[in-house]
Each structure stands twice: as C-alpha cells, then as structure tokens.
C-alpha cells in the first residue's frame, strides 16, 4: 500500500490569508499524502488550517484565499493548476467531499434520490432508469433502510444520521479515488456517529478509497485513522501512524492535545453530604399546541424527572439531542414553566411561582450557556454584563464594579478588560466571563448547559478546571448538562442518563461508568469514540 503512488499528495502547500489577518498564511508549507485505501486524519483545533487544507484540495477555497506555493496532486495531477472545467470533472468522479452539517449540505427542495442522481446526470451518460438503479444500489451500500421508499423523500423527512448516509452515498456513487470528510460526525449524536464511522471505514475498505478525514476529536481519530496529521496554526507539527501519535506523541503540542482529552474513567470521589440545593420531583414538561379546533402534536420533553443536587456536588445529565436534558435545565432555571412537578430550591418550590415572586429566587440559580458567542450581549461591555445582575438586586454600581473586577481576576482574566466588548475575547475567555457573570449573583446552584461543547479541547480542559475550582471555592451545587461522556466522567459526582425525556439510569459516576445497568447507557458507552484507545500521555498524567 505504501509503495503504490498515493491518491493524494500535498507538497509544500501554502495558502495566504488576506492582508490584515492575524497571521500571513492560513496554511504554510504543509505536505502529506493519502494512499489508496488509507484513512488519514487531519487533527487540529479551530484555526489550525485543517478545513482550508480540505477546501484547497477540492478547489473550493473562498475567493479571498489563494494557494501561493506548492502542489496538490490527485493521482498525479496537480489540481492547483487545473481549469475550473477540469476541476468540475474531477469533483464527484475522482474526489468527493462530505460536510459537517448534513441538513444544510442537502437541498431541501429536492428528493434525496434526485440529489444522488444529480452526480450521475452530470458526469455520466446513464439513462434515467439506469441512474435510478445505481442510486438504489448505492443507497443499499450505505445501509439505508428501504431504499425504494427513501429514494423519493425529502431531506427533512429523514434523520440526521440518514442524511449523512445520503451525503456519503452521493459522494461515493462514482467511486472516487479520494473522499474528503470534513468533521462529518461532529453534528451527530454519539450513537449515530459510531454508525457513520463504521460505515465510512467499511466502504473505503471495500472500495479502496483514500480518505482525508478532518476532525478535532481524538476519540474519532483513535477509532478510524490509519495515519494522523496534527496541525497547529497552519503548520504540521506531527505526522505518523495512529498508534505512534496517540501513544508516543513527539511534539509538545500533540502531547498537550492528547493530555487534554478527558478520560472515560471517572476519578475516585468522596460522596458529597452537603445540604440539598436542588431537588426536582416528578418534573415534567410537555410541549404542544393546544389548538382551538384540533388537538395539536404533543411532545413530552421531560417526564417524571427526579434529580437531587447537594451543595458542593456536580450532578451530570447525560443524553443525546432530544433526550430532554436541556429542557430540565431550562425548567430549573425557570426559563420555561414546567408542566407539572416540583422544583425545590432550598426550601421553596419554584416550579409554579409567578414571575413577580420568582425574581427573588432567580439569584440562587445561575446558568452558563453552551455558545459563548451568543451568551454575551455583543453591544455591551463585558463589565456591564457582569454588573447587571447584582445591580438588579440593589447593589450600588461602585460595589458591583468592584465585585466584577475581583471575579475577572478569579476566572483568570485581567480586571482592566471589563471595558471591552465580547468580540475582543476568544471563545474560552468569553466562557470565563459568562462564569464570572453567573458568580456575580452569588448563586447556590450553577447550571452549566454544555459549557464546553463549543470549545477546543485544550481550552475545554481549562474551563472545566475553572468550573471545578469555583465549585469548591463557593461550595456550589452544579447541574452539568452534557452529551460528552468523557467530560461527564471527569467532572460529575453523580450522573443521570436521559433518553426521550426520561431518566433511565442514575447513580454515582463511578458506578454508572463501571457497570451501566440500562441498555441505553450501555449503548451510549459502546458508541463513545476511542473508548478502547490508549491515550498514552493521558494515562500517565491522570
């Protein structure tokens, strides 16, 4: 395999960024190759240039960027020199790409069958009947159930995993030599992700396709890669076989990245015995339209949820999208009104409190949101965002500012930065500010709704550490919502696993991870990417 000419060879490729960017090159002098039947994972954090690499290969660079040096050889042909007509020929037939977001990558007004057939229509002379046969064939190959029925449905009628299968089918229908997968499973649930990864490996193994797989997730790397290319700020810092890179990383950066991957094994924890800060009893939330004439559709987002969080304790709610974990968080924060049940904060049931009486209790429960780019008002300085809450409760402006300065220092930011606007901070820094804003209210319960899912893995580790520090320091009760089992294993004392609105399993993190009782929990753990992998550094560091 190594002897044969590679499907893709990138040599000394440099792509310049427009003037005035924070660095001169998006990628600089990178070189690696992808052999037939080989999966090469390009790993890096945001801004590392991994997606630009993929776009350059496909000839899809945005207009402001251009390759200034080097060559990209697809089966020996330099695609940088190819005319746009030739590039069009190559795309689909010799190289194909699948994207992160399967909903937006598919055209919502065309049936999925038409979208796969479109590739055939453009590149082959097949008759319509033959095309349909080929489409059905490839749909069977990607294990879509009932291809005869699915071929005529629209993208919104099928699930995210099925959409990604359609994307893969369209990419592979002409048997390209190279498949580029740009974070193809990032938007999917973990169980779906496992299936898609298995599918990609199976198909490329059978067809001998070379795969350039872009990801930020070392679990996925461990699961699928033959070789790994690690990128940082537009340069390659390390290349090598998967096990070499994962177990014996050479560069400091790779070591740091791998060390930042949380282990699936929960560390030992003493049981918390503090007073109960939050107790929900039979908490339920039903969404639905109560039409005047028709009985609307009813969705039970959460049903009979019992969760207890003590002071100083972190309780995780783990589940896939649609499991109801965020609904529970929003009910507890009273951003939505629960349909029934009890939410006890301290001694008070806040479940049905009217807004006027609720206000006094709001300060006890604070929330840190998932998306640090949207959780701070872009038009207000971060200082104004932090002092807003305390001033609502009558703290004088000077005192509130003092508190904000202390909190900025506490979360590891310069107190002078209070006068800046959110866009001047990175994602991790913004998440620190969001934590400072929550702490400014001196809450008893902190709800963290996927607080690190939008962050790079190295930043993720720092923010998790900060959350743990403030929990200890202020004896906070933390309700931690996450889909990421690794994160849950590291930060949670106890874990509740939710599926379709119901808590299917609850217990200490150690118990749940060591001996999952419910079959859904077992399925989740089975699907966790890289669960069997040995992250050399992580094991020794932990």
């Amino acid at each position, binding site marked *: 395999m190594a002897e044969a000419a590679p499907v893709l060879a990138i040599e000394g490729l440099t792509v310049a960024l427009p003037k005035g960017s924070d660095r001169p090159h998006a990628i600089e002098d990178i070189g690696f190759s992808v052999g037939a039947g080989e999966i090469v994972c390009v790993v890096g954090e945001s801004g590392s240039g991994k997606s630009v690499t993929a776009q350059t290969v496909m000839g899809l660079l945005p207009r402001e960027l251009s390759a200034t040096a080097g060559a990209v050889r697809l089966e020996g042909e330099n695609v940088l020199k190819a005319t746009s007509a030739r590039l069009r020929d190559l795309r689909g037939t010799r190289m194909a790409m699948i994207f992160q977001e399967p909903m937006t990558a598919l055209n919502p007004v065309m049936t999925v069958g038409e979208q796969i057939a479109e590739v055939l229509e453009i590149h082959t002379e097949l008759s319509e009947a033959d095309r349909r046969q080929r489409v059905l064939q490839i749909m069977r190959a990607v294990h879509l159930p009932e291809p005869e029925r699915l071929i005529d449905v629209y993208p919104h009628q099928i699930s995210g995993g099925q959409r990604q299968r359609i994307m893969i089918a369209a990419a592979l229908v002409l048997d390209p030599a190279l498949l580029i997968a740009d974070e193809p499973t990032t938007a999917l649930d973990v169980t779906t992700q496992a299936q898609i990864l298995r599918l990609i490996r199976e198909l490329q193994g059978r067809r001998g396709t070379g795969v350039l797989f872009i990801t930020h997730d070392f679990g996925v790397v461990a699961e699928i890669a033959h070789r790994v290319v690690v990128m940082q700020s537009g340069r390659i810092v390390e290349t090598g076989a998967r096990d070499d890179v994962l177990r014996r990383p050479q560069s400091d950066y790779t070591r740091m990245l791998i060390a930042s991957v949380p282990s699936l094994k929960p560390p030992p924890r003493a049981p918390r015995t503090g007073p109960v800060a939050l107790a929900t009893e039979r908490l339920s939330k039903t969404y639905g339209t109560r039409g005047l004439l028709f009985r609307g559709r009813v969705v039970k987002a959460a049903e009979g949820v019992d969760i207890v969080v003590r002071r100083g304790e972190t309780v995780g709610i783990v589940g896939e999208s649609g499991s109801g974990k965020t609904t529970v968080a929003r009910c507890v924060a009273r951003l939505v009104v629960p349909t029934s049940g009890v939410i006890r904060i301290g001694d008070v049931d806040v479940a049905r409190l009217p807004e006027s009486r609720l206000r006094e209790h709001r300060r006890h429960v604070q929330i840190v*949101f998932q998306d640090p780019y949207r959780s701070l008002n872009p038009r207000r300085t971060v200082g104004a965002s932090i002092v*807003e809450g305390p001033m609502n409760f009558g703290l004088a402006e000077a005192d509130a500012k003092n508190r904000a300065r202390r909190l900025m220092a506490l979360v590891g930011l310069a107190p002078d930065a209070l006068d800046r606007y959110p866009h001047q901070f990175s994602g991790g*820094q913004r998440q620190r500010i969001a934590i400072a*804003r929550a702490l400014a*209210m001196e809450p008893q319960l902190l709800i963290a709704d996927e607080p690190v899912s939008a962050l790079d893995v190295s930043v993720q580790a720092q923010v998790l550490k900060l959350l743990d520090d403030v929990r200890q320091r202020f004896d906070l009760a933390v309700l931690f919502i996450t889909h990421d089992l690794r994160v849950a294993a590291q930060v949670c004392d106890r874990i509740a696993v939710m599926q379709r609105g119901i808590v299917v399993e609850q217990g200490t993190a150690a118990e749940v991870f060591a001996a999952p009782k419910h079959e859904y929990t077992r399925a989740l753990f089975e699907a966790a990417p890289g669960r069997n992998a040995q992250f050399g550094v992580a094991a020794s560091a932990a």
Partner: protein
Amino acid sequence: MSIEALPAEVAELAPATRRPGMARMLVRNPSVVIGATIVAFLALMGLLAPMLGTISPSEINPVFRNKKPGAERTIRADDGKEMQFVHRFGTDSLGRDVYSRVVYGARVSLIIGVTVAAISVAVGLAIGLVAGYIRWLDGIVMRFMDGLMAIPAILLAMGVVSLSRAGVVAVVIAIVIPEIPRVVRLVRSIVLSIREEPYVEAAITVGTPTPTLLVRHVLPNTLAPLIVQGTFICGSAILIEAVLSFLGIGIPPETPTWGNIMAEGRSLFRIFPHNIFYPGVFLAFAVLAINMLGDGLRDTLDPRFAKRV
C-alpha cells in the same frame, strides 16, 4: 484556593481593536453619499425658501396667468420700488409663480415625510416590542395590525379628511395608520429571534425586569433595520401625500405642495406642461434620493444584504 492558582490567560487578550467605524463605512457608500446630498439640498432649499429669489407662493395674479417659463414681469414692492421678476418655471392658471411654489413645496413634502416616518417608527416600535415579547398579546395585536394594514391609505385619507378638516395633520394621520403595521411586523420578527438569544435568557436569570430587558438587550437590535425602514416610509409618505393632494383630498390647494401644484396644472397639461414637469422632477428626485439613502444604509447597517452584490 487562591486567585493566583487559577490559570492566567491575561496575556493572551487580543489588542483592543475597534470595528471599523460606522460613520466611516457610511461615507464610503456612494448611494448614502449621493442620497444624503440630495436630501440635504432639498432640506436646505425648503428651509431657505424666502431667500432663494422667490415671491409669495400663494400670490394670485389674474393678469399673468399661464405664462411659459422665463416670462418676465414688473413687480411693484410695498415701498413703491419696481423690479423685474423672471418666472423661471412659468406661472399657473391663477398666475402664481411656479418656481416659488415648488421651492416652498419642499417644506410640506419633507415635513410630512419625516413626521410620518418618525411617528410610525416610534409607535410601531413600541407595539412591536410588546407584541413580540409578551406571547399572549401577540395574536391579538397582530390580527388588529392585519386589519389596519388592509385599509388603503387613500381611502383612509378620504375618511379622515371628511371627518375633520383637510390639512397636514389629517394627511399625516392617514398615511401613518397603514404604515404602522409594517413597522410592527418588522420589529416583532426581530424581537422573536432576539428573545431566544442566550444573552437575553442570561439577563432573565440575573433578574432583569422585563421593561429594562426590552430596552437594554432587545431594542438596540431593532435600530438598524428601523432606520432603514424609516427612510423608505419617508419616501413613500412624500409620494402618497403628492397623490392625495393631486386627487384633491390632501392639503388645501392654496398651500404649495408638489402634489397640489401638479393637480392645479393637470387640466392644461398639454399646453403648459411646466406646471406638472417641475414639481414632478423635484418629487422624483426627492423620493429617489431618500430611497438611495435607505438602500445604502441597509447595505452598511445590515451586513446580510451587503454581501449580496
């Protein structure tokens, strides 16, 4: 646990940069510059009307009716001095100087445009914020707005004028009422999307009272689109006023407005086209300039449109 033990990211802060100033971006946009220049010119013209070589726009002179542009006559002033006066744009069928009427007419047109825009934006903003944020009010308010929107401005103007006296106030009311629902819809749609933003929810959880929340976190997002919408309302109000006056149901005919001048010249249009031509040109330029200004503002203030060339 000391503060020092926490990871210090302080050094990594990006240098304090500002986004490119809005004012500078506006100055670079040609349609903003051209539109604003013409509007400013017209506004100055209306403001300085008495000093621009005009005579009284309502002075009737039966001897000097229907003169072509460039006709000269001798005017005797109050102190007995005589002077030659050139009717640059000719005179109308009552002998009034069309040039003076057009220049003074800019006053009424611009005042109506700006007043209508200001009132409908202010009222629409208030109603839209409430309708968008308070869920149970939404249905009621919006159905009422749908009803208002169904009333044609001209029909409403006839109603208002027949109830009260014809005049600027009646015309403004008649134009404002059907414009309000458009503003309400715009504001409401923005509020509906902004209220779901995490930073609004964060403000709720820190106990910010609803009125403060609306003003502080929601309202600023509506300003840019509202400025743009305001310019379009201004342009269309000027046009509607002209139509109403032309039809004789707007401002009383002795007041010079571009619509009135055209209405007056309608019957003799074939022989004396200047009565319609000159006010028409000014009207067209005014509306065009205001719309250009609005387009330019939208491109600059609303980047989603700017990207589509």
